[in-house]
């Protein structure tokens, strides 16, 4: 009796399925508990990877809920690559449709934020331009300039206070989140991604810069010149600008 890998993996992911025939204990009897070792290893290692990937989601729902949710997720969405550091790409969409989590409508966006932090952490290194690089341009050249942002930069926008929720669950003595829409800029000055709460207009402005619109076009999206200077100052201070064209 040959055991194909398609039979093996199907039985491995179905807790109630029979053990494939052709797998033996030392006395020649059918290996049942021994096959369960593989069942258990796969489920535990994938659930552990999800815990590592989504610590704040886990804190918000509690350990037992997270583990049960992970057991559903990993069967619906087994990894599609051996790069476990990026496992969980489908988590935001999964949580949006996961009925038991309906009372926490911000959960998918928190998962999105945790994925963005992970991608920022592993993104390529960039060499930032000098802090005063823009100051050396003539006013005309400045308005025509286009920026290249560092590979680790990420932008998020949510109808929920995702920055406040994240901070409240990762830092001591943080204030309670107020129910409001929030936008986040993620930078990585060195190795650790940094979260910045930014305004809707600053978000639109940085998004335009990320799409290599000119500074003149990006400036139209902010409230005033002060906000534009502050936004550019934040990007430069965080090492988020790697090239000026």
């Amino acid at each position, binding site marked *: 009796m040959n055991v194909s*890998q398609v039979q093996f993996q199907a039985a491995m992911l179905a807790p109630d399925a029979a053990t494939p025939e052709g797998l033996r204990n*030392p*006395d020649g009897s059918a290996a049942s508990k021994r096959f369960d070792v593989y069942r258990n290893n796969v489920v535990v290692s994938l659930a552990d990877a999800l815990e590592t990937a989504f610590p704040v989601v886990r804190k918000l729902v509690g350990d037992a809920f997270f583990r049960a949710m992970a057991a559903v997720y990993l069967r619906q969405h087994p990894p599609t690559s051996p790069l476990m*550091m990026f496992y969980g790409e489908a988590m935001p969409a999964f949580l949006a449709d996961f009925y038991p989590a309906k009372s926490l409508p911000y959960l998918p966006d928190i998962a999105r934020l945790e994925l963005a932090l992970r991608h920022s952490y592993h993104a390529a290194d960039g060499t930032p331009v000098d802090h005063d690089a823009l100051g050396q341009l003539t006013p005309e050249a400045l308005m025509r300039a286009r920026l290249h942002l560092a590979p680790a930069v990420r932008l998020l926008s949510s109808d929920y206070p995702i920055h406040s929720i994240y901070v409240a669950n990762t830092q001591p003595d943080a204030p309670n989140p107020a129910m409001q829409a929030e936008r986040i800029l993620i930078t990585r000055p060195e190795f650790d991604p940094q979260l910045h709460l930014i305004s809707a207009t600053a978000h639109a402005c940085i998004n335009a810069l990320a799409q290599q619109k000119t500074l003149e076009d990006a400036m139209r999206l902010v409230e005033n010149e002060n906000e534009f200077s502050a936004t550019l100052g934040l990007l430069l201070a965080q090492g988020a600008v790697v090239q000026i064209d």
Partner: protein
Amino acid sequence: MRPLSGGLKAHLTIKNESAMLDQTHFDTLPSRPGVGYKSQHYSDIMANPAPVGWLEIHAENYMGAGGRPIAQLKHLAERFPISVHGVGLSIGGEGSLDADHLARLKHLVGWLKPASFSEHLAWSTHDSHFFNDLLPLPYADATLNRVAAHISQVQDVLGRQMLLENPSSYLAFAESTMSETDFLRELVKRTGCGLLLDVNNVSISATNLQTSPQDYIDDFPLDAVGEIHLGGHDEEEDETGAPLLIDSHGKPVVDPVWSLLDYTLSRSGPKPLLVEWDNDVPDWPVLAAEATRADGALAAVTA
């Protein structure tokens, strides 16, 4: 005594770090203790690695584009020979190897130029789904042909020899027609690959399949061994009450495995020895103590 492996060397190396760039290159693993590298041990290892003479990394953890993991690895590689140990290639898989993953591996091995590359006699991917575990295969002509072709493909793409590790077995396949040692010997003959002998896995498989671990070592092609692994395991029972050991890499190496190591080294001579500890990773002194014990086992056969 190895006077250059202590704190003084570490101090000097840190001071001269920039001068060391690209000057040191380690082509082989030394017959000394190594450990599986965990990022929480970075400062301890850089400050005083004794008696650790080389490090092993899991290839898949260093396939991001940049950031801290790659930066740490570059620093470590300036001071230590590195063994790249893959856990995701699925060499025993029924399907073809994942071309994207092989390309990522080629990239990593290309810039890092590690002293060794190894993978497992196991499968982990089926139909593009990766299960993050080392799953078993039967030992028969069809699997032998397939695994040999995969190993040759990996060695061709990477342009170097690889080592193949013996698995932990929890069960046997009715369809197997040859022993694991014969299967491995034939792979070495057909592909020119080397072997990574995990004596913890030998101990686990022998207990689980009720065979003799010493007989396994006696029959193992020790000349092909480029590295030996040690690790901890869990102890359970199957439904008949028979012992069932589970490879967990989450505990100290047990005495029977240390004894099997001594038995192996007495036949093989000194080899690079790796202590693996992947789950419930302890503080550095605990792992360093395991490496010191491995150093003692090596000293016993070197003297």
